[in-house]
Each structure stands twice: as C-alpha cells, then as structure tokens.
C-alpha cells in the first residue's frame, strides 16, 4: 500500500486596516457611521478605564487588575459583531468586550475592588462572570452554544481566552466538543503574545493557534487583532457559521501592551524595544486614522468624547466606592445555596455575633 496524503490544511489570515489606517476597500465591511463611531468610542473608554484602574490600584483602592491595553480592537471589534441575544463568556481581561456589551465601568471597578457585586450577571445579561481559571470558561461557551443547538435557537456564544489558554486541556476539549455537538460557539482567542512571562513561541510548536481548530474538525482563521474591521468581519462570519452549528476558532493576533496584571513587571522577561514596536501598531490610533480619513471623526468630536469619558469615569469611581461602602460581609452566606443549610445558618449567625460557631 502506498503512502498517501490523507489530510492537509491551510490557515487564512485577514487584515483590512493597515497600521497606518489605510483600508483595503475590497474587504471593507459596510458598517454604519454610528457603529464605527461606537467601536471607536468603546475602545477609548476601555483604554481610559485601564489607565484609571491602574492608578487606583497603585493607590491601594483596587486589587490586582489585568489591563487589556492594546487589545481593544480584538475585544470591541468582536463583541460589536454579536447580536443582542448572543452570549459572552469572558476570561479576566475582557473589560473592553464587556463595555461593548453594556456593562458599566462601575461594575468593572467594583469587581477589581474585590466585590462580588461587580460580577453580578444573569441569563438576561447574556454574559457569565469573569473566569480566572485559565481556559476553563471555553467549555461553558460550548454548553451555552449547545443549548442553542438543542433548542434550535438562533443565538450563539462567544468564548474569550488567550494564547496561553490554548495549551490547556479544557480548551482542547472545548474545541473538540463544540464540533461534536454542533454547538453555536465562536472561540475568540486573543493571542497577545504572552501568558504572563511565557512568550507565545514557548507555549507551543504550532505555527498558528488558529490551526488548533483543524484537529477538532472545525474552522479556524487568523486575523490582525489590532484591526477592528478585520476582527469585526471575521467574528461576524464566524457567528453566522456558528448559528448553523459550525463552531469557529478565531485567532486575533494582538499584543498585551501593558503588564500582565498590576502585580507583574514585564522588564523581567521582555525588551522595551519590542513594546515600542507594537506601540506603532496600536489598534486605536489605526482606527482613529481610518475614521478621520472617512470624515467620521474630527478634532472636536475627539475632544468631546474625551470629556464624556472623564465624566463617565468619575461617576463610575463614585459608584464603585459606594458599592464598597455598602457591601455587607455577611452577604457571603446568602448566595452559596438556594436554601441555606442549617449548619451554615449557624455559622452565619455566629459571624454576625462575632464568635461562637456552635451557636452556644
């Protein structure tokens, strides 16, 4: 029997906006000026929120915070492509995606203040709380997308995770089971080049992360993750496919311009030169150049927007502080079970009374 090739694969890559803001007109999606401006506005809001959050963390008001700086196009571009009924399943750096979906800055800050209130969501919000265990949430998006398939509904779910997450068993299982179930699921991998200190090339020998879809028998595509138009376009198509029961993995090539979290020091493991290189490919600058070129953005509008964002931030900080001030520690007993078991009731009573857990 001869040797034959029984499988071959290729991976497509999509870029629509070049780093200088020039656009490939054949590929340019037809988005309304309002949608385009919204994408820009949300990217700017996310960037300022990160700056403010890091400053608040440095002053001791926030706990550990994971900035999404540099990844705004990957997040906002993809979340903007979602239909109202679609679901978002975030990791822990998805502030920009959550803002796109209508989360408030105040709740994001409250979460970073260590308050469960900041993670309050329900099926109505079409979003799960942030997931810190890396990769774990990808499977939840499979289940949600599978439920849509079972009930023959139109909605899809998008799971966000990073390059590091693609090494976990959970993500491999998610890609595979989404295909097996025909789940309405899109996997949006933000390859920001690092998992804390570990560079993408040490994470895996795979030439692209998109190709991890191939082994699962689902589609995979790579996009320029700093190009909001390309991310939007690729996600839109992926969602259309997913609604038909064909899950897709989108690898958005981007860069974590800031630290991993506020407890991290990138100087331990990467050169400043590399960071400067990526600064030039910044997603917001590129999109702004494009919008200016199309006459959608003027200096005046940019200034106005900046002032709006500052006002929004002030309110958000005030809201989060208020949530913190009002937080009742005994709340922790309230949400563990639908019905609090008697022994836990005793613990709760003791915690209020300040001592005897045996209730004596």
């Amino acid at each position, binding site marked *: 029997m001869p040797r034959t090739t029984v499988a071959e694969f290729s991976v497509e890559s999509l870029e629509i906006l070049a780093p200088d803001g020039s656009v490939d007109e054949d590929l340019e999606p037809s988005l309304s000026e309002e949608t385009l401006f919204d994408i820009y506005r949300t990217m700017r809001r996310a960037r300022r929120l990160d700056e403010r959050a890091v400053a608040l963390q440095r002053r001791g008001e926030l706990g550990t915070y994971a900035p999404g700086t540099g990844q705004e196009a990957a997040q906002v571009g993809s979340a903007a492509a979602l239909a109202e009924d679609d679901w978002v399943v975030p990791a822990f750096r998805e502030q920009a995606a959550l803002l796109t979906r209508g989360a408030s800055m105040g709740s994001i800050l409250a979460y970073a203040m260590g308050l469960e209130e900041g993670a309050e969501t329900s099926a109505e919000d079409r979003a799960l709380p942030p997931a810190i265990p890396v990769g774990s949430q990808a499977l939840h998006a499979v289940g949600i997308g599978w439920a849509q398939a079972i009930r023959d509904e139109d909605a899809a779910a998008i799971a966000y995770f990073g390059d590091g997450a693609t090494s976990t*068993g959970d993500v491999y299982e998610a890609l595979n089971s989404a295909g097996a179930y025909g789940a309405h699921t899109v996997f949006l991998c933000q390859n920001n080049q690092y998992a*804390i*200190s570990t560079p993408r090339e040490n994470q895996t020998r795979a030439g692209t992360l998109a190709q991890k879809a191939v082994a699962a028998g689902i589609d995979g595509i790579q996009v320029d993750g700093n190009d909001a138009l390309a991310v939007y376009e690729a996600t839109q198509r992926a969602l259309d496919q997913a609604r038909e029961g064909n899950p897709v993995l989108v690898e958005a090539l981007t860069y974590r311009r800031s630290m991993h979290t506020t407890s991290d020091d990138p100087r331990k493991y990467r050169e400043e030169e590399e960071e400067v290189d990526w600064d030039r490919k910044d997603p917001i600058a590129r999109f702004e150049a494009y919008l200016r070129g199309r006459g959608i953005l003027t200096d005046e509008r940019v200034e106005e927007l900046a002032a709006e964002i500052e006002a929004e931030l002030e309110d958000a900080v005030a809201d989060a502080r208020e949530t913190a001030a009002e937080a009742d520690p005994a709340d922790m007993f309230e949400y563990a079970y639908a019905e609090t078991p008697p022994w836990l009731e005793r613990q709760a009573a003791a915690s209020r009374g300040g001592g005897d857990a045996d209730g004596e």
Partner: protein
Amino acid sequence: MASDLRLVEAVKATLGEEMARDESVVLYGEDVGVAGGVFRATDGLLDEFPNRVYDSPLGESGIVGAGVGLAAAGMRPVAEIQFQSFLYQGFAQLQQHASRLRSRSRGGFSCPITIRTPYGGGIHALEHHSESFESGFAHVPGLKVVIPSSPAEGKGLLAASIRDPDPVVFMEPTRLYRSLRESVPDDDHVIPLGEATVAEEGADVTVVAWGSMLQRTLSAVDDVDADVEVVNPRTIYPLDTDTITESVKKTGRCVVVHEAPETAGFGAEIVSRITETAFYHLEAPPERVTGYDVPVPMFAREDAYLPDEKRIAAGIRRAVET
C-alpha cells in the same frame, strides 16, 4: 551559620541546595524560569541550573501528569503550581496516578514528585487565589501534605519533601512569604515529615494551627487569660497524632484553627483522632475556629471570612470556660 530569611527566600535557597545536592532534581512550572516565578520563589535558578529549570506551557494537568512520567523515569520533579486553586486542574493526575503509582505497581515504581504551591488567604488576591484545600489532598491515600509556618520550616520541610520517596503536596502560605523573617540554618537542615512541634507550651488548653493561622493563633493567645499550648503539625499527612494526643491529655481541652471551611476541614480529622485517643482526658468539647462553609469570598469580604485573632481568642475562651 544562619541567615535571616523570609519564607520565599528560604524556599528559593532550599531549591538551589537540593538541585546542587541531587542531579535528578528538575524544576518546572508556569513562569518559574525566566521570570523566576510569580512570587519570585525560583528567581535566579534558571541561570544557576540552565538545563534543569523549565517554563512549562500553561496547563496543570500536564504539569502533574508529566511529573509522574519524569518520576517513573528516575527524575525528581519539583513542580510549581502557580496557585493552589489551579492544582484542581491537575487533581485527576494527582489522585489517579501520582498518589498510587507505587501501590498500582506493587512497589515497582514510586513517584517522588514534590508539588509546591502557594495557598491561603490574606493577601487581597484575585478570586481563586486564596483557597486552602489541605484536607482534600490529605484525603488522597498515597500523598503527603506538608505546610511550613515559618522560613526555617520552609527550608527544613521542603528539603525533606524533595528527598521523600513519595509524592508531596507542599503548600506555602502566601501571607507568610514576605511578612516574617527568621534565622534559617545555612547548612543542611531537614525537618522529618510527620513530626509536629510544640510552638508554645502551656497547661490549660491545646490549640492546633498551621500556615498563616499559626501566627494569628500565637498573637491571639496574648488576649486570653489561660495558659495555652500551641501545636504546629507541620505535616498535615501523615499527621503526628502522638504529639497532639499527649498535649490534649495534659491540658484536657483543645481547639483547632484553620482557614479552610469547617465542614470536612482537616480540623474534623484532628478532632476525631483526639476523641479516639484522649476521650477520657477531655474536660470540654473540642472547638473549631475555621473559615465558613462558603466559597472563599473575594478580597473585600476576605477579612470577614478568615479566622482573626478575635475569633481565635473567642474559640479558646469557649474551650477554657466550658
């Protein structure tokens, strides 16, 4: 000779010494190489031992599972799991393989892996970064579970764990990493596993505490009008029941303090053993001062969850006053 070290420094020094001592020791885990670990517990070791320190790809099942294979092939793997909560991702490998490779092969193989992992609350960390699952690990036959409560113990117990022929989960209290300095012997310093120590002698009541709760207990004792004996088990499994029993036989009263939830926490095991071994010496019901039976809250509510000096003192008073 001795040096004044913090726990994290003692861990690093010990890792270096054990690597120098035994060529089969390899170190790996997420971000342990170039970055030197998120707590810097392995800082500089990659430079010192270039082919024996590895940044692993992300994935704890892979870290533990590959460790089983390394061990089977004659290496002494020392793996870091970045935070104890993420050892749940590796729990299947720990429970199904590392812990029972010896028994499944009828002694043909052993699995001398050491899994170091920061654990516990009190440092305002993110969700899933503050848990204390020692009782869960202790519930896996074949595993040893070790918790140092000071820098010198960090050294002595880590050296013993790495040299131990069986798999050890070595839990490092994050709260103590940098908060405590202590004189740590420079030369070989090994604290045998399975031996508790009496941290403070007393006659009225026995308090058993470990990890960051030991420090809290030692300071809570000052607020109590009783002569308190404090026992630090150092090894959770195998537990030194004799030392605890002897102490309780002397005092007739006991309190166990831990930050993990009360139900099925390791306090339950300790109290059971005490009732089995010292029942007729007990003058009061054993007390537990613990975390509550809820998921560890995020850090804004953490202080209300973790036993503090006040709760510990109240627990001791209950035991003494009954």
